[in-house]
């Protein structure tokens, strides 16, 4: 169950943020989310997030792209309208394969890249015309925001966060 009250702690430096995350985690508080203006290396590990599975998805998409390229080139260049490729009219896919390798490579990359980006957006619940979710516009500029669930331990939490170097601590009521 999502906590109805959260604390927003704001930092101005990624190194301070990293140290703070480690401290908050070691005090066994649950960090709901962190908003940063740029990707911070190692933040996912410090937060204890599961490793990403996008690489597996990407591999599968690449294989799909490769298959599409092979089937497509075979149909277009060999079956539907046989082509004399490089003065070698063998009309066999495998014998003309060197000519198809660039297309096979390009479509593998094309499918992997585009489908991976689309997967990433959907998995992150981002789609066109969606309203921004980040709670503070400064996180798109030079501030870092850590969101922590509050379970009647507001005082203890804000003391801890102050110690870690937060420049601002706000209690937010997230009543739906």
């Amino acid at each position: 169950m999502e906590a109805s009250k959260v604390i927003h702690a704001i930092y101005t430096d990624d190194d301070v943020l990293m140290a703070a995350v480690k401290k908050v985690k070691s005090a066994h508080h649950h960090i709901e989310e962190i908003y940063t203006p740029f990707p911070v290396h190692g933040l996912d590990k410090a937060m204890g997030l599961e490793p990403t599975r996008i690489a597996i998805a990407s591999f599968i998409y690449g294989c799909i792209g490769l298959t599409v390229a092979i089937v497509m080139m075979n149909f277009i260049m060999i079956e539907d309208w046989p082509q004399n490729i490089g003065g070698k009219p063998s009309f066999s896919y495998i014998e003309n394969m060197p000519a198809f390798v660039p297309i096979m490579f390009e479509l593998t990359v094309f499918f992997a890249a585009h489908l991976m980006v689309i997967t990433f957006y959907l998995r992150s619940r981002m789609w066109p015309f969606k309203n921004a979710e980040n709670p503070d516009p400064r996180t798109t500029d030079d501030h870092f925001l850590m969101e922590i669930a509050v379970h009647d331990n507001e005082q203890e939490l804000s003391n801890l966060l102050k110690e870690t170097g937060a420049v601002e601590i706000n209690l937010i009521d997230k009543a739906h």
Partner: protein
Amino acid sequence: MEYKISNRLRLTAIVLMIVGVLGVSYSFVTSGKTFEQVETMLANESHHGGGHGEEAGHDKVADHDTHASEESHAETAGHDNAESHGAHAEVDEHTKHVNHVMHAMHKRPWAAIYVAAFFFFMIALGVLAFYAVQYAAQAGWSPLLLRVMEGITAYMLPGALIVLGIAIASGLIGHYGLFVWMDPDVVAHDKLIQGKSGWLDITWFGVRGLIFIAGWWLYRHFSRKFSIAQDNADDNKNFKKTFRISAAFLVFFLYTESMMSWDWIMSVDPHWFSTLFGWYVLAGMMVCGITVIAMITIYLKSKGLLPKVNDSHIHDLAKFMFGFSIFWTYLWFSQFMLIWYSNIPEEVTYFIARFNDYQLPFLGMVAMNFVFPLLVLMNSDYKRIPWFVIMAGIVILVGHYVDIFNMIMPATVGDQWAIGIPEISSILLFAGLFIFIVFTALTKAPLEPKRNPFIKESEHFHY
């Protein structure tokens, strides 16, 4: 931390060299067969074949088409005309075939030692270029590995001199065992080589080889000197000097490396040319160099001598191994596809010889240098496991040895190739020399360049 070469390693290197020298001498001594000896040998072989005799005969005749353009430049252009005179064809064919086999046998030890010498030299030169890139780019991750690279580049000078020495000796005393354009008889009957004789001239070949080597050695000498001086300096003056000479060296290197690859490799096939050959050789050189950096780093780390090198450094080296393997494949394929597509006779013979006589090494090499690293080094976790990187590295090194083998052998020994005593003992000889020189050089300076301005960043390097 100071490194001292262990007695066991030194002994291994010396044993490798002794075994190598014995094998190489043996193969030179036994290669000098006369016409009659080769004739009896071939006769015995076809008798053993029994029922296959006829088939084997067919192969030989079929092979002649390729040899006419590829292997026996010695027999030159006039040869095609001679062949069409059907009259004394039977006798001629036989003499020609025996001669062909005999020449290939004479050339084999030269080609074998040349391939191995070039392979180990190429590792050191690749590392030297990679080292210069680290300085020119002011890389922060790598300073902890710089001394390892300096150790490897110590082999550059002796290695290069040996390669050039073998190349020139093959023309002076080796009966043109490697480069047919060194043979005045061949040139006299060959219009294409005559057109290139301004460049392909043995004196000019030697002079430019020495200019290349001198340039590379000057960079290696001064960068090493500044690197050691930087250890006890209190400013970054030496580092800045290395930065400047590294940038200049890289320009010099890219031109001379290209010319070196035309001279030392591409000219074994003097009719054939490829405009991206320099790049192609460079890619192989970089993969091998980085692989050896990774292997030696892992070895020294396992001895506790590089305590500050963490698994992120290994990871980055493995990424480079992966990346340059893909780059190598890109160039290999670009070269192959354009020639295959355009199908111009004087270009395409190069690949026809390889597909006909070298199918296993030629295609096996692509599997070892591309498919294997692609699948094995793709996963990022595996790049941090030392033994995994070593195993992948061994396959990559073997693959690139075979690559050099495929560049030299078809033009020298043709279809008479094998991996036997000449090839293996040459590898042992130069492996021993390489280990001996590299690990001796590693003892000469502390393994950590402690006053390098980026050393802190390198220590904290975290991917």
